[in-house]
Structures are given as C-alpha cells and as structure tokens.
C-alpha cells in the first residue's frame, strides 16, 4: 500500500477532467453505494472504479488497494454476519450463534460498500495534483486557501510519515526489536513507543514546511492568486451525465 496516495502524472481522460468533476465523481460513486441496497449496483461501482483506474493507467495501484480492502471487508463481513438475527436461519453454530440469509445479504452489502466507497477517493487523489485540487476548491467552492492547503498538505504528508515510520521501524529492527512477532498485542506494544520519535520528526517537518510557506508568501495569497484555469469541457459534461444516471439508478434500483 506504500505510495497509494501519491500523484501519478498522465494525460488520460480521467486525468484531464476538471478537478471539481473528479471530486464530484468520487463523491457520487461513494454516495451511490449508500443510496442503494442492490448488491449488483455496488459491485458495478467497484468495477467502474477499476475501469476508471485502468483508463488512467493506475490499474495496478487500484487493484492493490482493492485487494487490501478485500481483506478488511472480509473481517467486517465475518464480524457483521453474526449480529443480524433477522431472516431464515441457514447455519446454526454453538453458543447461540447462527447465520441467516438476511445476515449474509446485509453483511455482504456492508463489506462491498466499504470497498466501493473507499476506492474513488484514492483514485481521485492518484490522478489529481494536490495544487489543482486546492486551487479548484478555492475558485469554485470559495473555501479559504488556508483550509484547502491544510487539507492537501495533510494528504501529502500521509506517505511521508508512513515512510518515516518505516525508517524508524527499520532502525529499531536493526537493533534487535522483533516487529515480525505473530502476537498482535506484542506488536502494538512494540510500536507504541515509536510514536514519540515519529511525532517529533513530524512536528519538525511541519514546522519547516510552515516556515518555507511563510517565506514564499503564503499569507499574501488570495482567491485570485491561482495561475492555472480550470475549464469544463465535453468530458466533464459526460462525467456529470454519468453521475446523474448513477444517482438515478441508485435511487430507483
């Protein structure tokens, strides 16, 4: 999952969409999963995500994200399936546990929704420059630049901090700390003390970033400061039509 939020440059159709269109598309893909109760439609949204990723040339990354989410979805499914008591009992287990048809249906939908709702965001971040996203939010939604900068910087720092944590863990491993232990509790106990050096280095890095931004006129920025213009073209119109159809399908199916 390393680098799954990094921007991947390209000139594909998804890349060329207006940042606001990408944001709207990601939002609609997420929202559609929660509007519908149809498994096929949610499955369709997942397939749609993978198709968009393939068009943007980031299929491998999206497939990796999908597989990682699949593991999490399986855990969610197993946890959820025992809590739904309605429906016809399909399997009776010891200690009063049983699995129903409605339980399977709901848990499957729940797990699929989690996958389908998480994928559009990572895809959108993979094909949109942070600066474009930030500038578009300022220009079109009139959100103050300071807030959009915080948002995009926070997203940008996730892989940096992840790398930092890996570096700290490798340094500790070299000193004999066994992070490869099978005990989850032991692993957590080993990882917790590492939060301190991570926090210190993160704060230091953020401070450097803040000084760097200030010395490059961050406080002088206005809504009109952005150099690039973000127009809406035919592909954006097509994307909005697709969004409208998807919402319609989610509400009616």
């Amino acid at each position, binding site marked *: 999952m390393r680098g799954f939020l990094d921007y991947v440059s390209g000139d594909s159709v998804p890349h060329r969409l207006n940042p606001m269109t990408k944001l709207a598309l990601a939002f609609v893909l997420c929202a559609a999963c929660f509007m519908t109760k149809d498994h096929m439609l949610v499955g369709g949204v997942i397939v749609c995500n993978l198709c968009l990723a393939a068009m943007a040339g980031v299929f491998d990354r999206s497939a990796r994200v999908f597989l990682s989410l699949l593991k999490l979805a399986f855990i969610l499914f197993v946890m959820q399936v025992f809590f739904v008591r309605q429906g016809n009992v399909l399997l009776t287990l010891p200690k009063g546990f049983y699995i129903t048809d409605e339980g399977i249906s709901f848990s499957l939908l729940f797990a699929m929704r989690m996958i389908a709702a998480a994928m559009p965001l990572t895809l959108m971040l993979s094909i949109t420059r942070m*600066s474009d996203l930030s500038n578009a939010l300022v220009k079109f939604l009139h959100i103050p630049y300071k807030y959009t900068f915080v948002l995009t910087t926070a997203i940008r720092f996730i892989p940096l901090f992840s790398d930092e944590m890996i570096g700290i863990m490798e340094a500790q491993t070299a000193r004999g700390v066994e992070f490869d232990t099978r005990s989850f509790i032991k692993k957590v106990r080993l990882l917790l003390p590492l939060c301190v050096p991570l926090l210190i280095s993160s704060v230091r890095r953020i401070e450097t970033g803040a000084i760097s931004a200030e010395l490059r006129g961050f*406080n002088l920025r206005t809504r009109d400061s952005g*150099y690039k213009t973000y127009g809406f073209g035919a592909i954006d119109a097509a994307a909005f039509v697709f969004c409208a159809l998807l919402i319609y399908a989610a509400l009616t199916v």
Partner: protein
Amino acid sequence: MISIKNLEFRYGDSEDPALRDITLDVESGDFLGIIGPSGAGKSTLTYAMSGVIPHHYKGDFYGSVEIGGLDTVQSSPEAIARHVGSVFQDVEGQLLASVVEDEILFGLENFGIPREEIEERIEYALSSSGISDLRCRTIASLSGGQKQKVAIASITALRPEVIVLDEPTGELDPQSSRRVFETLRELNHTYGVTVVIVEQKIMMLCEFARRMAVMEAGRIILEGPVREVLSHGERLEEAGVNIPRVAALSRRLREAGLYRGNTPIDLAEAETMMREVAADAAF
C-alpha cells in the same frame, strides 16, 4: 546587501545566547561560505538573515539585521522574502507540492507575479538549476540531489537578490553536492545572485566561495577571503574546523621554514607549491 550589526540572539527556551556580537556585511554579488562546528550558531545566523528570526523563532534579539535596506525586525517575513530566498537543511520538509512545476508556482502565485511573467520565470528557475527535464515529475520520484535543486529553483523563480542555504548538501553524495554548488555558482556568476551558504564540506566551499566566515560558540571568529581565512590553520583547528589537507600541508611547510607563499586552496595550487618547495630544496 546584508548588514548585521552587533547581533545577539537567545532562543526563548535557552539560557545561553545562540549568537553573540555578530557583525557582518555581505556585499551584493558575494559568495559567502559559513563554517563552524555543530552548535556554533550557523543555522541561527541563516535564520536571522532570512527573517525567520525574530518573526518565527521568538527570543531576545539585540542589534540589527538589514537586508536590502529593510530592518528584519520592523519588516514582515513576506517583505524580507522579496529580497532573500532561503533553502533549509530539511529539503523534504520545505517542498510543499507534489509536482516540480507546482512547487515553483507556489511562491510565484503567492507573490502575485503577473500571469504573463510566470511561464518565463518557471523556465528561468528550471534552466538555471539544470532541471528543465524534471518539470512534470512528481517530487516523490526524485533523488535527494534533484529535490535539492527543486528547492533552489523554487527560490530562484522569485528572483531574490540573496539566496541563503543551510547545509544544502548535508545528505548528498560528493557528485550531487558538486552539482548543487555548480548551480549556485551559475546563479552567482550569470545572474548576480548573492549566495550565503552554511556548509561542512570545506574543500568544496573553498573551491566555490569567495569569502568565508568561521563561527565558534555563537561568534564569528574569522572572516575574509577564503585564502586568508585558511591561512589561520591553527585557529581553525582550535575551533574544531577541519581545514583542507592542502592548507594543512602548506602550514606545516611554513612552520618548517620551507614555504613562504600563499596558502593553496586546491590541488593545482598545492602542486605549484610543492614544485616551489622542491626547487628551493634543490638549491
């Protein structure tokens, strides 16, 4: 260009001053190298030159720092930044965008550079740093040396009169370090940018800098043309600064009464020195 008079600074949480009685003038077009052991106050001095002190780091500030006629205490960081560009030790931390082009655009947009001028400035910044081919690359995919050049380019795009760098080659291999220094020399020679650089690689500094300042315990103990500073070998060693081997050799030859000429600062000059010594010994 930069005029520092009797500067003393103590960080808010510290008892001892980080800078003591600093008086330094940096002329326009100069290339000044600052060396000294760890904790000598080199980074603090660069902060004072870029206005980070007293605007970001608070503490007791005495004396004055003027940059292009602006007093750093009375001027805003943005006003100071129009004259001075800073590159910090932590390059990763100061890069704020995900793509090289956006990193350079960041400052230009903020300072409200006219739209028609921006493209030319981006090209100038990229070409002067020798990274025109990296324009559309993501920063995450760059090497340490390339990131350092991007950091420099993002500053040069703003066309500052002075560029202050704090150990920009700290994490780079010798070859990448040399490329960074060559970029700075290009900026200094061709575009007349004043360069102030804190550096530990003294041999490289001797090759590229015109003047050198040596710091020890918050004070500037030596300052002048590189050759002149290197001639104080004993004082430099006392301060914990490793002098280049060619300068150390000339000092020993001088102490032995075998050489009276100038202190060499590179291998070619050392060769000339040794030829002179050999010729004298032959007579």
